């Protein structure tokens, strides 16, 4: 990757002006007065802009190139989203402002809830969760409250396949449920007969991603829904892979009771180097009373918040959700419309299957499990490991040398040397062709070159083991470690 290789000094190593003493107002209680300066350098704006500008040049984003991280849906983020989100009429609003001064935002949120309900086939939505995992946590709390409300508190188990995203079991535990992981079949799908044996009067919920993390659609979904429901459990839809099915099939129609969506994936809001995201939760009718407050209500042409929902779980986050992210998703849905969203999913699936075929045309990588995939697929680099001792990690690092971003690695765990690829619908055909060619090249390259990659990046391969063994997390700790 041709990014500047000169190291950018740490901010506190850039020379600025001296620290000065400040007079603390007399009214501040003696016991609380600050006595020390704050050790943040005093620099000029020129220095700061250059510093962060140099840092940005040492970073790869979607605007740099293809970014096919599996299960992450790294699609292009339309620029208009950013422009609208930055309008002060939206961004400079206090959450407790007088209702007459926030009608535009309330209308946007109200309409977005309805749009998401239609997209997923659910009966109601809350926009409150700040991220997918946060939505999962809320979903688990809703399941818990639902069963408690039915005097059914013995339901303490939540079942999830071994291919599930890491957040699934983490959210299950965080809500106080037991995680029951079931192994997948040899086809990479839910083992229906095992599920039948696993469900019981202790089952609170079954948490499923469909298509699953292998990109395989769980074709037995209707039977799965019956099994879970007959046992008295709820069915949870992890919407991380929603980009595969918009306008083709809806979670609500498949029998799901709780659905989360990742607006920062499917609905084009940027990932921001880790966030902010948004993880709205949709539910079927029987769970509506438990949704967080406030809910948004429309009376004639006026929108308002309502808090009088006695069975509600309360709040999961301050205020009403990551409204700026909601605004981007709303903008995107308006632009795409019904046909555009359907086309996005169709081409996301076409791109994945096309890229998969292109890669498999030449030796190097295998595709465990069935051929037809949805928006993503998982390759195995096991042959390369066996033949050349080249691992999935090495392939990923070598991809960086060719100026493209690697796929998700070593996930799901049931595929050896996994490379999980999701190109999304926003990648042009030539980018897909080129990606396949690069992978072919890497597969045939000298093992030593691949194993020592990357060599064209701003730094060589980073020692992550050391970062965990000897964590140095701040400027202060650098000083201490130098002592």
């Amino acid at each position: 990757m041709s990014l500047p290789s000169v190291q950018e000094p740490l901010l506190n190593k850039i020379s600025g002006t001296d620290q000065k003493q400040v007079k603390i107002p007399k009214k501040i209680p003696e016991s609380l007065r600050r006595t020390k300066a704050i050790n943040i350098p005093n620099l000029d704006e020129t220095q700061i802009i250059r510093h962060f500008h140099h840092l940005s040049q040492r970073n790869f984003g979607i605007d740099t190139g293809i970014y096919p991280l599996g299960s992450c849906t790294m699609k292009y983020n339309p620029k208009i989203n950013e422009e609208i989100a930055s309008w002060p009429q939206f961004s400079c609003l206090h959450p407790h402002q007088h209702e007459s001064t926030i009608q535009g935002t309330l209308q946007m949120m109200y309409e977005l809830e309805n749009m998401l309900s239609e997209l997923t086939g659910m009966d109601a939505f809350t926009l409150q969760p700040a991220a997918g995992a946060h939505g999962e946590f809320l979903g688990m709390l809703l399941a818990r409250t639902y069963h408690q409300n039915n005097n059914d508190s013995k339901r303490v188990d939540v079942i999830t396949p071994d291919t599930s995203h890491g957040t699934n079991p983490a959210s299950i535990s965080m809500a106080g449920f037991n995680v029951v992981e079931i192994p997948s079949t040899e086809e990479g799908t839910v083992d229906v007969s095992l599920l039948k044996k696993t469900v019981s009067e202790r089952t609170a919920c079954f948490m499923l991603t469909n298509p699953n993390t292998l990109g395989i659609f769980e074709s037995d979904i209707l039977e799965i829904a019956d099994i879970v429901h007959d046992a008295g459990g709820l069915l949870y839809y992890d919407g991380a892979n929603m980009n595969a099915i918009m306008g083709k099939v809806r979670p609500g129609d498949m029998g799901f009771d709780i659905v989360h969506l990742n607006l920062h994936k499917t609905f084009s809001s940027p990932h921001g180097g880790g966030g902010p995201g948004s993880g709205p939760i949709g539910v079927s009718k029987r769970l509506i009373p438990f949704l967080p407050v406030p809910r948004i209500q429309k009376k004639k042409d006026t929108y308002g918040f309502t808090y009088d929902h006695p069975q509600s779980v309360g709040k999961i986050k301050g205020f009403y959700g990551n409204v700026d992210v909601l605004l981007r998703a709303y903008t995107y849905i308006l632009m795409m419309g019904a046909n555009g969203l359907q086309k996005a999913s169709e081409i996301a699936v076409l791109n994945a299957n096309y890229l998969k075929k292109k890669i498999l045309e030449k030796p190097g990588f295998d595709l465990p499990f069935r051929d037809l995939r949805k928006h993503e697929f998982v390759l195995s680099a096991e042959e390369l490991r066996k033949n050349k001792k080249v691992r999935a990690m090495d392939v990923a690092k070598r991809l960086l040398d060719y100026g493209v971003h690697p796929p998700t690695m070593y996930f799901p765990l049931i595929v050896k040397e996994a490379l999980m690829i999701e190109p999304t619908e926003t990648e042009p055909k030539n980018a897909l062709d080129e990606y396949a060619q690069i992978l072919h090249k890497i597969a045939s390259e000298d093992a030593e070159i691949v194993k020592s990659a990357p060599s064209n990046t701003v730094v060589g391969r980073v020692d992550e083991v050391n970062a965990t063994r000897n964590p140095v997390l701040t400027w202060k700790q650098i000083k201490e470690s130098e002592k």
Partner: protein
Amino acid sequence: MKFIPNAAFEREMLKELNLSSIDDLFTDIPSSVQIKNLDLDEGLSQQETEKKLLRLANKNKSCQNMISFLGGGIKPHYIPAAVKSIQHRSEFFTAYTPYQSEASQGFLQAMFEYQSMIAELTGMDIANCSLYDGITAIGEAALMATRITKKSIFLIPSNLSWEKKSVLNNYAKGPSITVKEIAFNEKTGQLDESSLEKLLSDKVSGVYIENPNTFGIFESHIEQLIKKIHEYNALSVVGTDPFSLGIVKSPGEYDADITIGEGRGLGNPMNFGGSGLGLFACKQKFIRQIPGRLIGLTKDSNGNDAFCMSLQTREQHIRRGKATSNICTNEGLCALGTAAYLSWLGGNNLLEISKINFERGQSLSKAISKVNRFSKPFTGTHFNEFVIKSPIDPVSLNNKLITHGIQGGLPLQRWFPTMKNMMLFGITEIYDEKDIKRFISVLEEVIA
């Protein structure tokens, strides 16, 4: 088709796959649940979209177009253009979580600097690189205190906002944490020391104290309170307003174990309470129990300095059901904004802005309490938020003020049923003495 370049090559690509129709790619979906189309409007052009959104935007009234003295833990602060410019570098905002270190050195270093500056500001050893907001951070801190101490009671001030209590209550459900409330002193508005003493026991995992508290008042005895808490081997969790830290001691100086807070105001807009920034810092000895992502300095294969995610073994993508938190997506871009903001201000101006916020708060509260029949119910020294007792119902007062383009304080009865006629006001550096003057003259007019 917008943002779908291959829509134009659909037939060609299908042919390569030996398929005749796009529907051949969806044959694995049971036909009984397949749908033909969605019941949504047809797509708009970008221009039409912008027009529609502008109509919506104009139904709002932003803080830039009125005077707003709303408190409640979130307030407008000035955002320098340089901060926005840095945040809008698309290499940052279109990047994913930095799993591939070699392609993410820029963002990783920015996050390392964010952690460093938060540690400097709070006086703590380490900080993570963000949680969702300051409110969920209370929940995560309670979970962390429970993990560390293996005890089951968590204490909070009774005058915490209803929203915070509700969120904490939800986070507490998993490990069945019992949350108990410490009374406040009706005269000073500060935490009641004897109430705390009564509640402290060997079963207490941690105590949450805000400084300044919900009423905006500084807890001047916090050092003593924390000593008491430590006598019971419980952890002290301090909620701070970062803007106050230029003039008051950092929580690290009075031995806080965990420091949290809302960092949004440091370089990020209010966004109607949207994307926030949960500050989370703690003592080094708790490093393996901290929730969220950590960025560390290490070496690359050539022996040069490089950054990467550290202690990933605590996180959900490795630990799954045994992770310290389920958090994955965080508030990275807001943390970047804060890193840019803090470096733009520098240590010196941080002290200055802190002082300005304090002084404006004093000035506004003094002015309001001079208005006939308005008064300050608490004697404790406050920062830039404070409680005022209004002679008339706060909701109807606000209804009158808004017709003059002024947003009054937050009616507190909604949170605390006994606090009739009490309002929580707040002010920051963006409003000056002129604005205060105008507010007071309108206030006098509407209650006359």
